[in-house]
């Protein structure tokens, strides 16, 4: 395995150890051409997350009243619903878009600005569209798989989706810096906390956590892209 000519030097430095370690055993995969570098990133992630992010999320879960956690989760979920609605329309799914938009209006107007998810109580299911999926629907290929420390698994397409998501805000447009940073922090905390049960499964069930997460991530994204009906996987059981 040789390093491509355009490979940035700093990244090469980051990945070099893993390259040396990984080349012998790991054949190159079409969907993860940067595997050695990604594995190095994953190692960095394990240290940073394990020592800082995860313990903080655990404290948050253990010591914050359930109802507060739920309200925080609903607040950000309400923003996600708005993003989902935008993407429904961008993908030409007006029915689902109306559904998600209805959720936002209901929860913002009657659910204390999104702190209470009364739309779910009323039986309006939550949507789950995002910009990564929209780019996929528009025909952009998935691109290489990437593992980014703290951020987690993504692909070039999904990462691009996240950049679009980030640029839209709305949290980024709040002029008051402490308020904005608090919201970013809470949002990240809420998300990380929601992943804690999954950590345990990876810890206990995976022989190779990196490969386990990669496959799960890519499969799940495919399922989302095809709205729950992904094309059947090639079966090489026999």
């Amino acid at each position: 395995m040789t390093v491509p000519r355009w490979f940035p030097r700093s990244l090469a430095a980051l990945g070099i150890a893993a390259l040396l370690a990984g080349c012998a055993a790991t054949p190159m995969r079409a969907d993860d051409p940067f595997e050695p570098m990604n594995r190095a990133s994953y190692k960095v992630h394990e240290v940073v997350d394990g020592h800082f992010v995860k313990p903080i999320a655990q404290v948050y879960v253990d010591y914050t009243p359930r109802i507060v956690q739920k309200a925080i989760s609903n607040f950000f979920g309400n923003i996600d619903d708005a993003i989902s609605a935008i993407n429904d329309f961008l993908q030409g799914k007006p029915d689902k878009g109306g559904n998600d938009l209805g959720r936002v209006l209901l929860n913002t107007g009657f659910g204390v600005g999104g702190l209470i998810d009364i739309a779910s109580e009323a039986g309006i299911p939550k949507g789950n569209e995002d910009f990564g999926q929209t780019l996929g629907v528009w025909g952009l290929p998935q691109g290489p798989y990437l593992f980014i420390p703290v951020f987690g698994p993504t692909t070039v397409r999904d990462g691009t989706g996240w950049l679009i998501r980030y640029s839209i805000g709305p949290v980024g447009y709040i002029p008051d810096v402490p308020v904005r940073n608090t919201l970013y922090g809470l949002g990240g905390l809420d998300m990380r906390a929601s992943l804690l049960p999954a950590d345990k499964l990876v810890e206990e069930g995976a022989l190779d956590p990196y490969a386990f997460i990669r496959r799960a991530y890519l499969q799940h994204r495919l399922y989302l892209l095809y709205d729950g009906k992904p094309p059947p996987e090639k079966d090489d059981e026999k």
Partner: protein
Amino acid sequence: MKVTTISRRPAAMPGAGLAVWLCALAFAFFALPALAQEAPDALVKRVSQEVLQIIKADPKVQAGDQARIREVIETKLLPYFDFERMTALATGRGWRSATPEQKTRLTAEFKTLLVRTYSGALNQYRDQTIDYKSLRADPGATEVTVRTEVVRSGQAPVQIDYGMEKTPSGWKAYDVVVGGISLVTNYRDEFNSQIQRGGIDGLIKTLAAKNAGGASK
């Protein structure tokens, strides 16, 4: 038929869905089973309802009593799984070259791993309802997919599909797919690289070590 929650916050990560379905995976795996002459969809419904009922009502399960949880799993769920088929699916091509003895050992280790991994998450499933989709299959079919959707407040519904096969002792599940992630084939990459490195025996050894190491946790 929509699905999981994944997108989230500005500064955060795209792995959010990971939480939801990896957990749901746990639930799905155990929310399974069947009776001999029972139709596959009826079986999934009966067994998942039975187990949900136990999770909600049994004080020992709620308290996280591992012995009791294990008992529930072994009596209520495991009879409705075909672990050999699951192991074959996870192993992929390598399964063909395995000896009968290797197949037996591999199946035993994989079963232990799956049960241990997913039993820990069993008592997390309480506040949810399951929507059972109508089965679309030939009356004479010997393999069907039973589709369900798990609905939880504040989260997008998660689709859980059970790959079921007809056996002499009734319908059994050979795969559980949660939010597009197959509980079984998710292991294929890991199994393949283990087999490339140390053959089937190497894989068995790795699984055994994993099972032994994690048992004390």
